[in-house]
């Protein structure tokens, strides 16, 4: 098993982060193509693409705790979180590769952050500590790079208290790992 990885890509980070949190040893090989295609997991003689599918596959490994599986009756949010991560990834690449600085936060970023903030805020009032329910899951792992790397798009986090709360509790998870732009928790 091996990950075709690009260290600065947010989707690749989601997979490395997930593996670290789940306690999976995941060797990586740097592959510039992953900047465009996202992470690719070489496993069982084949290739698996897309951060949500890769993370789901990791949860099924024998060494991973059952806690990473959703509880019975809990709403699946992996697809929503993956779509949000794709949006952020696209916007972030556009901002980082732009020849000239952009003026202010793009409206599409505000829309994305508002959608995330609404969901996290309602969850908190319903005593649902994680997007995936009582324990963090794949949806939470996919969400973290979005909100943490939103700083690259100069999103002011004072406007999003539920997102700040999510970042803080996520960084305290055992096995949490950083990437450039995502500092450690103190």
């Amino acid at each position: 098993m091996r990950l075709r990885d690009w260290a600065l890509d947010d989707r690749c980070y989601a997979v490395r982060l997930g593996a670290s949190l789940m306690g999976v040893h995941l060797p990586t090989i740097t592959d510039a193509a992953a900047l465009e295609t996202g992470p690719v997991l070489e496993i069982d003689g084949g290739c698996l693409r897309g951060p949500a599918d890769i993370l789901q596959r990791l949860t099924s490994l024998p060494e991973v705790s059952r806690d990473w599986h959703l509880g019975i009756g809990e709403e699946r949010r992996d697809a929503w979180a993956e779509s949000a991560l794709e949006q952020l990834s696209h916007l972030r690449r556009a901002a980082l590769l732009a020849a000239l600085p952009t003026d202010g936060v793009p409206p599409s970023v505000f829309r994305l952050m508002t959608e995330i903030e609404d969901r996290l805020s309602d969850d908190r009032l319903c005593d649902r500590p994680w997007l995936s329910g009582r324990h963090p899951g794949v949806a939470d792992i996919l969400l973290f790079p979005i909100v943490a790397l939103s700083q690259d798009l100069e999103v002011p986090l004072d406007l999003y208290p539920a997102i700040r709360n999510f970042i803080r509790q996520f960084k305290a998870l055992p096995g949490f790992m950083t990437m450039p732009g995502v500092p450690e928790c103190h």
Partner: protein
Amino acid sequence: MTDWFPLALGMDVPSETAAPARLYGKEIALWRGADGQVHAWEDRCPHRGMRLSFGFVRNGNLACLYHGWQFGADATCRHIPAHPELRVPGTIHAHAYRAEERAGIIWVSLNEDASLDELPDEDAFGARSILVQAPLASVRVALALPEEGWKWQEDCLVAAHEPEPGLTMLHMASATLANRLDIAARAKTTRDHLEALNEKVPA
């Protein structure tokens, strides 16, 4: 014009954490010690200008993320890790503002003599701080908010501040713990209504 500004819900600054806030573009660090006391300081370390809201709270002090200078609840510098033997002069301190927690909301005043009479004195439970992409002036008019910047709407306390021109943070607190979800739903409806209104009538 009021001296007190509602900057955040109390529940959004948990014990032993720091959080950023802005008031008309002015950056303010809110933090809470283990004793539950909330503080509001200029969001700038006097050493190298790093934002103190990025810092961490340990042993009742707010420590700067950059070089670890630690500031006590009275805003004076207590410890400089690079000079552990140094008795830090009292002249080295963060710039503190007045902060009060009332009705589930953290209120900050830049005026040292501001009267507490302007603040609500009933109990309430924070429900939602929500971003509205509209200027505070139009939000005030649409919600008929009085000069003090807050009012009770039946069982809900509504307060607002402007982090930067054109953006408003609406803070809503509930008179009862059980009703917080309803109030949070009301906050989203209010935001959508105000933003639609703002698009029709640009400032």
